[in-house]
């Protein structure tokens, strides 16, 4: 449609009806306006298709997980699932917390104090997904390699995280993410 209009406008101008220049201008305007409207319409029609690829309502509905921290003794770590991702829960000891508080934040690639990453210092709760390209770092099992900073180590491309889950070395740009969570009682949390 818009295209056909364009050709007509062109022919009119080209056919050279003298003194009818304003006609060509009006046609040009209509041609442009119709094309622009068509483009906007097409873009608007694309959105439902794109958005249908975003998380559906049922996927969004699965987005809280309750965890009972009771059975996790000091020094132990467990992995739970939230939104299809592993969540690392580690019960840390006094000494470890004090050590981490001493880290010189200015030297970190993604500077963040340990205290800012926890609600209760003994419970470190993080998304166990490497911020590089999404592998699950090692360090949850007692037999795992924990990397050069005693926290987690991602084997995919060699990222080292410390005991606060902060990136210290390797290609990952960010600290392991802290998910939204709250303590529902003293020893249970709700993630999400």
């Amino acid at each position: 449609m818009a295209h056909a209009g364009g050709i007509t406008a062109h022919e009119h101008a080209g056919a050279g009806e003298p003194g009818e220049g304003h006609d060509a201008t009006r046609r040009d305007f209509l041609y442009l306006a119709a094309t622009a409207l068509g483009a906007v319409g097409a873009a608007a029609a694309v959105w439902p298709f794109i958005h249908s690829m975003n998380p559906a309502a049922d996927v969004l509905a699965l987005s809280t997980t309750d965890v009972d921290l009771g059975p996790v003794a000091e020094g132990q770590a467990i992995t739970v699932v939230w939104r299809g991702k592993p969540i690392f829960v580690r019960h840390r000891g006094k000494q470890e917390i004090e050590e981490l508080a001493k880290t010189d934040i200015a030297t970190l690639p993604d500077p963040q104090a340990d205290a800012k990453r926890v609600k209760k210092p003994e419970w470190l709760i993080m998304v166990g997904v490497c911020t590089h390209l999404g592998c699950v770092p090692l360090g949850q099992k007692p037999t795992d390699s924990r990397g050069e900073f005693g926290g987690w180590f991602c084997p995919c491309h060699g990222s080292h995280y410390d005991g606060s889950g902060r990136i210290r070395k390797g290609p990952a740009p960010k600290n392991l993410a802290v998910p939204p969570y709250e303590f529902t009682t003293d020893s249970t949390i709700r993630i999400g």
Partner: protein
Amino acid sequence: MSAPEFRNGLVRWIDHRMGIFSFMHHELHEYPTPKNLNYFWNFGSLAGFMLVVMIVTGIFLAMNYTPHVDHAFDSVERIMRDVNYGWMLRFLHANGASFFFIAVYIHLFRGLYYGSYKEPRELLWMLGLVILVLMMATAFMGYVLPWGQMSFWGATVITNLFSAIPWVGESIVTLLWGGFSVDNPTLNRFFSLHYLLPFAIVGVVVLHLWALHTHGSNNPVGIDTKGKQDSLPFHPYYTAKDLFGLGIFVLFYFGFTFFAPDFFGEPDNYIPANPMVTPAHIVPEWYLLPYYAILRSVPDKLGGVLLMFGAIGVLFILPWLDRSPVRSARFRPIYKQVYWLLVADCLVLGWIGANPPDGMFIVIGRAATVYYFAHFLVLLPLLSVFERPLPLPASISEPVLKGGGAAGGTVKPMEKA
């Protein structure tokens, strides 16, 4: 082009109304082709053959495949064990992907050696690269379908590449996944796209051939044909040569398919996907290893991703980086050497990509990455200016008939190719 006289009446009737038979006669039969093409010119038709094999085997696999996280792995095992000839279809498809890439990579390096990307074939070259990119996307999504450990973690790492894009990266990744991790919605859409993209490739192949038939094939000496004496009709000369080459190629392809079907595969992909545990060594399929090596050579996330895509990106602007008027490396003494260095460099990158990223591997990987880009961005522009090409033969026929190479007979110095 004079319309041929078809003997069959029905053919004549149709051709008069829709010149499809004249068209085919023109493009596949009398189509004049340089008479000096060597066996490296077989790989285009071999790639076309592999595309057909992939589509046919894929369609039959899809009849028994279930794109659901709970059933995908088992449905592939069922194809392997219970479906009649299912094992054969799957191994033809899985090894077919490898042989498709072998054919296309040789085809591409043929173009690099003989300067086939130069004027007037720039669009032809770029359309070929579009095909390569679509193939990589298709193969990547296909590899996700069996839903083994490598499928899952390959999908995770590759989709996460997009998270490197500033600001919108995370939303794009969520959009790709249809969730918060690689999961059932991801598998579903990958299956849908894996079915679709090969047909998009067919479309681009048509454009590629259109561009090819506009100026015809390049040839090993890289100079234009100068008349009938320089070319042969495509049929029967090159149809026969292509078929002979196909026989040899298929021998290798079937050799692997039937005698070493898992040679190119990763054992970890026979372990069902587990979103909670990443395998110790995740590696992509061999045809993606050089890019993976480049990705890992850069200590910065966004930088690594950009450089990886840039590795294909430089190939798109290659016709404007290499300004030497001589096409074929036969007459470019220095280019010929850096060409082989580039081949070696790509093999080194592939080897690095297959190894864990530590120690020496990082150092070598970085050096090889730098060299790769230096080849295109520094060496080629410099060579265009400083290299002194050998004299070109006067015509394609000349070296063929006089048996001599560049040195033989009368030479016109420095002819523009």
